[in-house]
């Protein structure tokens, strides 16, 4: 077997990109989204659901979505992401509409995550303050996590977003240091949380003592009483609720796996390293998610459900307990036996996790904005790159402004209008992207055989990527429909309206470009070479 390739001295083909680096980049993009907030709320949001099981089941579609993205990105490394995968393989209008839906879904996701993040930072500071005997710090933490005025959450979330903007704009060594901190702290804190909770199986006597030590004497009993008085009853576990939890929570948490694959062009061992790195990153993330969810419910028992119920139904009655929206660190940090450092690490793990996904997410969405601007399907301004910072200034501003809108929508500021404006369901949009990316992979060997060539693999004579793509497409449709069943009708309507706006924009730009003699279909469709 000839192993030698005669490589010219003048080549970029010696570049190496190890799988460990890819793995780190994939995990950096994933961990932090839904695990610290959504998982702990599942007993209320999806009554009867089993959160750890939801993350186990959720790994199956996540795996197929990850592999779809990994494969497509490794054979089209400079394509620019799912907008081009879908446009190039299925239809440009579909790619465009899905992309618009994803930006806007990201606005809401930024908002939701950062609004929750203010709470987490409040929890962290309160824990640190109490543990260190600093009353002022503890009070400030309580102020942030359960503020008397909801404007505090709004301002806090916007400030967090502005720090993200600052760091991704300046880049360089400062950004590297910033990214290292926001990546390692949640990883360490998450592992500590898992270990602490596994060592403390739930029993009312021991749990209540630990809880009261952190949240106030009598807090545990207060919550239990309020829950029972307002109609809480244990709900029998049911698979249907768990499946809805997969769609609404677990898949949200697993999003973000494909970011590294854009670098797979012209490297020494490209496809294998990319696939190995992205898939192992997804699997390791799954282990962390499942362990964290399982350990939290193992240690928290029915109290988690009671707390959710009491908070969402009757938090006005809380006197002792701070009115903090349920988050994992609230529960995990009580098991550190008074060790302030450990408690703070757990609490900041949660806070950093919701925060650290923002820079990668913002950059990913700005690339989508770029692609549209290059294809003249979005204002040209959004393709400008700052000469000083090498960052796409206007595209980032666009996403930051959108994030602020998302924060306003997600915060309690809007009051009753919140349910109307909050209808842009992020999971709805992401699942659309995953579903059609699966379809793009399935069709690739047929519609773009020359691109498929570099990832060619067959099982029983059938293209393996197509098999995986079909599975991804099917699972995507299933969970898309399942997610829709847990959405309010108004939310479905608003999400569909957003997609309609996306289509209207496409038609507008198609006509605008047509007047200049450009048929948009020809920009991305293949020239027949023969």
């Amino acid at each position, binding site marked *: *077997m*000839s*192993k*030698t*390739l*005669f*490589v010219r*001295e*003048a*080549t970029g*083909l*010696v*570049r*190496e*990109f*190890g799988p460990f*680096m890819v793995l*780190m*980049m994939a995990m*950096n993009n994933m961990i932090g989204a839904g695990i610290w907030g959504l998982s702990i709320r599942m007993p209320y949001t999806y009554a009867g659901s089993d959160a750890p099981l939801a993350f186990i089941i959720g790994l199956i579609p996540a795996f197929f979505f990850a592999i779809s993205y990994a494969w497509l990105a490794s054979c*089209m*490394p*400079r394509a620019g992401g799912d907008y081009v995968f879908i446009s190039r393989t299925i239809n440009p209008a579909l790619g465009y509409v899905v992309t618009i839906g994803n930006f806007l879904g990201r606005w809401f996701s930024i908002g939701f995550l950062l609004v929750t993040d203010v709470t987490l930072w409040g929890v962290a500071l309160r824990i640190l303050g109490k543990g260190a005997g600093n009353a002022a710090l503890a009070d400030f933490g309580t102020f942030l996590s359960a503020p008397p005025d909801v404007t505090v959450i709004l301002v806090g979330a916007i400030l967090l977003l502005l720090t993200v903007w600052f760091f991704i704009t300046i880049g360089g060594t400062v*950004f*590297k240091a910033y*990214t*290292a901190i926001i*990546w*390692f702290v949640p990883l360490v804190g998450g592992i500590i949380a898992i270990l602490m909770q596994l060592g403390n199986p739930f029993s009312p006597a021991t749990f209540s003592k630990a809880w009261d030590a952190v949240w106030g004497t009598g807090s545990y009993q207060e919550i239990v009483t309020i829950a029972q008085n307002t109609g809480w009853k244990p709900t029998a576990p049911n698979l249907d609720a768990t499946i809805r939890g997969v769609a609404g929570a677990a898949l949200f948490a697993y999003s973000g796996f494909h970011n590294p694959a854009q*670098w797979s*062009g*012209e*490297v020494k*061992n*490209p*496809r294998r390293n990319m696939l190995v790195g992205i898939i192992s990153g997804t699997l390791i993330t799954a282990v962390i998610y499942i362990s964290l969810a399982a350990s939290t419910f193992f240690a928290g028992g029915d109290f988690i459900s009671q707390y959710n119920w009491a908070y969402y139904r009757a938090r006005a009655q809380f006197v002792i307990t701070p009115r903090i929206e349920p988050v994992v660190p609230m529960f995990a940090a009580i098991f550190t036996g008074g060790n302030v450092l450990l408690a703070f690490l757990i609490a900041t793990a949660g806070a950093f996790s919701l925060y650290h996904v923002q820079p990668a997410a913002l950059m990913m969405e700005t690339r989508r904005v*770029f692609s549209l601007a*290059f294809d*003249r399907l979005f204002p040209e301004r959004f*393709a*400008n790159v*700052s*000469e000083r910072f*090498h960052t796409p200034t206007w595209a980032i501003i666009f996403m930051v402004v959108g994030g602020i809108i998302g924060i306003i929508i997600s915060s309690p500021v809007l009051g009753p209008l919140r349910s109307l404006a909050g209808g842009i369901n992020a999971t709805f949009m992401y699942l659309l992207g995953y579903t059609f990316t699966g379809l793009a992979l399935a069709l690739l060997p047929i519609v773009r055989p*020359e*691109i498929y*060539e*570099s990832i060619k693999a067959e099982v029983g004579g059938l293209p393996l990527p197509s098999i995986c793509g079909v599975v991804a497409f099917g699972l995507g449709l299933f969970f898309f429909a399942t997610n829709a069943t847990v959405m309010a009708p108004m939310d479905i309507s608003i999400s569909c309206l957003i997609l309609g706006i996306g289509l209207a924009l496409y038609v507008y730009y198609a006509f605008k*470009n047509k007047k*200049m*003699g*450009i048929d948009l279909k*020809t*920009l*991305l*469709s*293949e*020239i*027949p*070479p023969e």
Partner: protein
Amino acid sequence: MTLKLFFASDVHGSDICWRKFLKVIDYHKVDIAILGGDLTGKMVIPMVRDGEEYSYHLFGRDVKLTKAQLDEECVKIANSGYYPYPCEKEEYERLGGSEDAQKRKFNELMAERMQKWVDLASERFKGKSQLYVSPGNDDRLIVDEILEKSDSVVACEKKLVSLPDGYDMVSCGWVNPTPWNTTRELPDEKLEPMLEELMTKAESYGKLICNFHAPPYNSGLDIAPKLKEDFSVKVSVGGVELAPMGSKAIRHIVEKYKPLLGLHGHIHESAGFRRFGRTLCVNPGSEYAEGVLRGYLVFLSGEKIQGHWRVAN
């Protein structure tokens, strides 16, 4: 009057990309098509015969095939930009043992493909001035000879060529230094005088197109991963470390002379456009290994850019 042009770059030997390039004028209904540098491929793939079978190694895979499958496989390899070389075991060992022999074999295969390309172009474009081709830093000088002799493409390297509707174009495939010590590299201090001399050939700059292979320094069209000494990519928790790799000389020239349009390539990852005052600079990027012809459609009207669109065919 509008001049509609298509520009692509860095096809790196991809057969399918060349064939698509030849179809661009009809497909996109443009007046001219310009192909920037780095025309030649980067690897020879020896396909060693063993009895009735051949075997080769590519993209991390070991492939065995029969004689009947050989032609089709060679087409696929050529479409990725590489040079398939079916050979006997002795020949493979001979090449493996001699860098000079490898270099000569590269030259031979590059010239063969380049000649095949211009012959293909001749079928439709003989005697016409619609295809403009220039080499880049990766291309050996033998490419220039073949282009100059062609009756179907206009060879542009280090010349001022006239385009329809009163537009002119100057081309230069030389770049600032890269880690790979390629054929056409010069430090910016020496590159700039070369470009200055080229620019003096133009009578005016209002309708001048500069087809310079390297993008202007720090233009956003030249951002590439940083490399360590062993050519591995520098990655940190912040992601891949990037830096501008373009030419300061080219940037000075663009800013000084303010041509209408800058056409660039060289940095495959850095597709995009950038305005320097009135000058629009574009880099279409490259996806040659995937058989995708990345390009830019640019419509010119007088001394203005009427529109520009990135394409991926």
